């Protein structure tokens, strides 16, 4: 039935060629996006494939497959031996388990007939092809999950990220509004000072900043990680200011003539037009907080119960550096929540644009 509808629409539409052209353009552009994505996300694919390999599969060889190939094993007298495809001089090819490795000759056993004992084969076993099947190891995820206390780390990260996000939104919107719309004397210099605060490398302000928080007794709590965000930061203010400055002044002026206070202008006129930027700032802060590592590490030292996921993942990276599969599985799991939030946020993002359109 679906086919019938389709062909009918195609055949009788007066816009047939137009539709076809449109279809061609859409396919072409989408194909372009697909190609870019494939290249762009290739390291990500590398990461994912690593995450589902077993340690033995990863070590399987320099020219080993990128796929999680599991050698077929045969248990002979209590030990597991890998099965190889072994060619013999008489032209026969048999699948045999390699029991005793040697440089010139090796000994195999026939899994179909182990009672026959060991078969001697002349040649170097390294030239043989191992019999293997694709066998992803999804249990890496559950293993990593069991080692790391994800629920607690997620909870802490969400707490730190959301409180800081609320703080930075409230403060940065106000400050950006001030820079974008008000005739403050020396505004350019002030703005340069604001930008200046992020230009000085953090390495040199780290120790004085730490000493300050240690003196007022804030170390060992979330305070140094969230409170400063309530006082705006250059990244967010700069972005919001840039966005506010793309908004025409006519609407705020009209609101002002209607007797609106600047506060009212901000949340009735500016904010509704700025959702894309506000969502961007929220998202950036969220991801910053999600991945910020050294701050939580130093301020929450000795308080594992307060530490966020970044510290958890990093710790894990170090402790299980020899188990890349677990490290990657952990990194992937740590990304799931931000990913979901991004996916949801972009819907709001779109809606925001619609509102802007209506108001214009």
């Amino acid at each position, binding site marked *: 039935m679906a086919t019938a509808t389709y062909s009918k629409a195609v055949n009788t539409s007066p816009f047939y060629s137009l539709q076809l052209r449109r279809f061609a353009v859409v396919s072409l552009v989408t194909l372009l996006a697909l190609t870019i994505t494939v290249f762009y996300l290739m390291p990500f694919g590398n990461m994912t494939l*690593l995450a589902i390999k077993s*340690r*033995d599969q*990863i*070590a399987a*060889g*320099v*020219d*080993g497959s990128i796929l999680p190939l599991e050698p077929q094993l045969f248990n002979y007298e209590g030990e597991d031996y890998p099965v190889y495809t072994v060619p013999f001089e008489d032209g026969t090819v048999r699948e045999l388990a390699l029991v005793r*490795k*040697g*440089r010139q000759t090796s000994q195999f056993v026939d899994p179909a007939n182990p009672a026959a004992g060991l078969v001697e084969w002349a040649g*170097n*076993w*390294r*030239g043989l092809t191992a019999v293997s099947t694709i066998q992803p190891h999804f249990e890496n995820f559950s293993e990593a999950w069991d*080692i790391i206390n994800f629920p607690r780390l997620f909870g802490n990260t969400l*707490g730190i990220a*959301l*409180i800081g996000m*609320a*703080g930075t*939104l*409230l403060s940065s919107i106000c400050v950006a509004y001030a820079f974008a719309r008000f005739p403050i004397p020396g505004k350019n210099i002030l703005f340069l000072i604001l930008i200046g605060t992020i230009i000085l490398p953090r390495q040199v302000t*780290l*120790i004085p900043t*730490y*000493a300050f928080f*240690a*003196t007022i*007794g804030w*170390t*060992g*709590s*979330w*305070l140094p990680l*969230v*409170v400063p965000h*309530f006082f705006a930061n250059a990244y967010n203010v700069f972005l919001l200011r840039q966005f506010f400055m793309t908004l025409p002044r006519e609407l705020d002026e009209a609101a002002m003539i209607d007797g609106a206070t600047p506060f*009212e202008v901000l*949340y*009735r006129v500016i*904010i509704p037009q700025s959702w894309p930027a506000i969502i961007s700032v929220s998202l950036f802060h969220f991801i910053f907080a999600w991945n910020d*590592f*050294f701050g939580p*590490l*130093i301020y929450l*030292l*000795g308080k*594992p119960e307060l530490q966020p996921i970044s*510290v958890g993942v*990093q*710790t894990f*990276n*170090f*402790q299980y*550096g*020899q*188990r*890349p599969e677990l490290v990657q599985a952990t990194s992937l799991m740590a990304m799931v929540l931000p990913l979901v939030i991004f996916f949801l946020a972009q819907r709001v993002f779109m809606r925001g644009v619609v509102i802007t359109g209506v108001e214009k």
Partner: protein
Amino acid sequence: MQKKFVLVAALAILALVLVVAPAAAQDKVTVTWFVGLGTGSNAEQIEVQNKVVEEFNASQNEIELVISIASANEAADDLFTTLVAGGTPPDIVGPIGVGGSNRYADLWADLQPLVDSTGYDLSVFDPALVDLYRNAEGQLLGIPFAVFPSITYYNPGLFDEAGLNYPPQEFGAPYVMPDGTEVPWNYETAAEIAKILTVDANGNDATMEGFDPASIQQFGLNFQWARLRLMWTNIQPEDWYDEASNTVTIPESWRTATQWIHDAVWTSHFMPNATYDASEAFGSGNAYSSGKLAMAITPLWYTCCLGNSVGNFEWDLAVVPQSLDGEYHVATDADTFRMLKDGANPEAAFTVLQYLLNEAVPSLAPTYGAFPARPSAQQAWIDSKNAQFDWGINWQVAVDSLAYNNPGNMHHESNMANYGKATDAVFAFQTMLFSDAGQSIDVGAALDELQAEVQAIVEES
């Protein structure tokens, strides 16, 4: 809209207030213990350390011991620096090695007065080991805790496959070649068999004509996770820094040693270069545990990291090869806990230190892979290792190796002017030696350059 705005603000403030944890009243003396500058931040180790702290706190009522574990090791130094410079230094740091201690040489407390006042018995230790912790002024900056002699870890399966005998497990024993001839177990012999143990994808070994160095599947020998000075010192211990004249000389034997390493990596190919070493196929920097390295020369602490070996192969220990002079010299790492000077409560800190060095040894030593410096604690360590690796490892090799450690100024981490910077320069040279840029260098000329560089560094101070 306005309501929402106010609501969000109120919620944020409320959340802030909740975060401010009320500080609990403390009537005990607090002693902080910082872990992370050496070993001690693996998951199992963290668990054991926490238990030690718990037991210590339960054992008395005067002191509250608090542990801070810098869980990600790369950042531990930054963290420690920040704590100290920021005015909140810990009281006790450790385990920390000789080199790590040298980096922070001016921070450590002299323990001699405390040893004298408490009558702490140092006589149970090898005097050479105690002297390792004395500085030029005779201050005692540490008490022996753990020793890690260099050992040859070998993979018996790979020797079997190549039809080679295992390396000797006794000092003085020869190596038996496949044809039955006995040769001394030295670096020449090690290189010879390591080549046979290095195999490419076609099954050719490194002694064969068609050997392809671009597709190596298995390596013969590596100094696993070792710094260049440890390699040099194993090949031949030397005192390269003269304090009186403040001069650095790279001795002839280290030039030979460097050439040996260069040949091993770039000519004979039995030692992995940086690219192979970093690849996942060779354990992302931990080649021996990937099961594809026949011999790893590295200190005893490496047992820490063999619990997850590929295929759980049954590894064993052999003695290190004889040095160039035909004698045995074993580069030995020595870790301990150190107290910071300027601490608020040195007596309390020393009480904790004694606990860590005595009562806690049976718990801490096995988890650190730390062979106890206190002879009476050594058997318990061996027993616990045998429980972990149950196929019968020859631990006597480790015990025997202790007799061959190098005196203080020949130690591979012996102090020198501007230690941190000099170490950094040697590490840069090592990085170069093992990566592609090292392939075509003139080793002698490169060492001349290094010597000049390090000389300039020691003069800087």
